[in-house]
């Protein structure tokens, strides 16, 4: 009698949402790497950077904003840990992470208004062009991540949020938080 072979066992190592988000984050990391690459080559070709006739970027004020974004990442990590133990305990840190993220984007918008008023526009120079392209691309990602975080928070309040839903949102937010210090150091300093 022929021996019956057991079917191969398939494990779900990570939720599908996490896997999809990891692939998405890898592609987005390459988008930012391409922008950084173009920026560094143009910056390296210039004799003086930033151009003398262009307004200076508010590095000190943005450092505070950077700290707010980093804090939001840490608070969201804390919210994820709290979610594992007691979902009720995750509400406050997640609300704080969301508020800090919204503060970051709001502050960026205020900064843009100031800079446009001072004459730094998309077409005023390559400095302006790269600034709005790189920081704007990050801002778009931040807005999308805030929307995802708000969706997760709504689910948490309604008691319907699962870990499989929260984990991809966390990964996306960590990406937005993680890429910003690199952009800040390259563009602002």
């Amino acid at each position, binding site marked *: 009698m022929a021996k019956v072979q057991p079917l191969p066992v398939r494990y*779900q190592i990570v939720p599908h949402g996490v896997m999809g988000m990891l692939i998405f984050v*890898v592609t987005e990391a390459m988008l930012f790497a391409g922008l950084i690459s173009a920026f560094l080559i143009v910056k390296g070709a210039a004799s003086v950077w930033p151009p003398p006739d262009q307004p200076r970027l508010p590095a000190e004020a943005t450092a505070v904003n950077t700290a707010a974004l980093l804090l939001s990442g840490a608070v969201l990590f804390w919210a994820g840990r709290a979610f594992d133990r007691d979902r009720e305990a995750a509400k406050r840190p997640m609300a704080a992470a969301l508020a800090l993220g919204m503060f970051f984007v709001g502050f960026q918008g205020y900064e843009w208004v100031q800079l446009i008023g001072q004459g730094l526009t998309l077409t005023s120079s390559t400095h302006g062009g790269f600034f709005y392209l790189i920081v704007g691309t990050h801002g778009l990602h931040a807005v999308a991540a805030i929307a995802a975080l708000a969706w997760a928070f709504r689910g948490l309040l309604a008691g319907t949020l699962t*870990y499989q839903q929260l984990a991809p949102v966390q990964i996306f937010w960590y990406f937005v938080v993680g890429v910003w210090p690199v952009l800040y150091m390259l563009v602002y300093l």
Partner: protein
Amino acid sequence: MAGPRRILHRLTWLGLAMGASPSVVLACSVCQGGTADNRIEFILTTALLTFLPLGLIGGVIFGLRRRYLSLAQQETRDDVPRIPPRDSASATL
């Protein structure tokens, strides 16, 4: 002359022609006219764009493998059923 041999023959001649005039086939767009800083940035960013995807994909594969080994070890230790339900806790991070 047979097809593959003819292609190889042509490629050999093309390679020799390219080797005879390297400036024409130089891939570096800033190596001829750019500044020293520009050249360094070009090389650094080329390295970044080459190794970053390899590192990211390698990191994801390494993380998944570590997660798989951790789950397998846990399964052996706890003596839980071999086929976990689709929505089991072991499917979470």
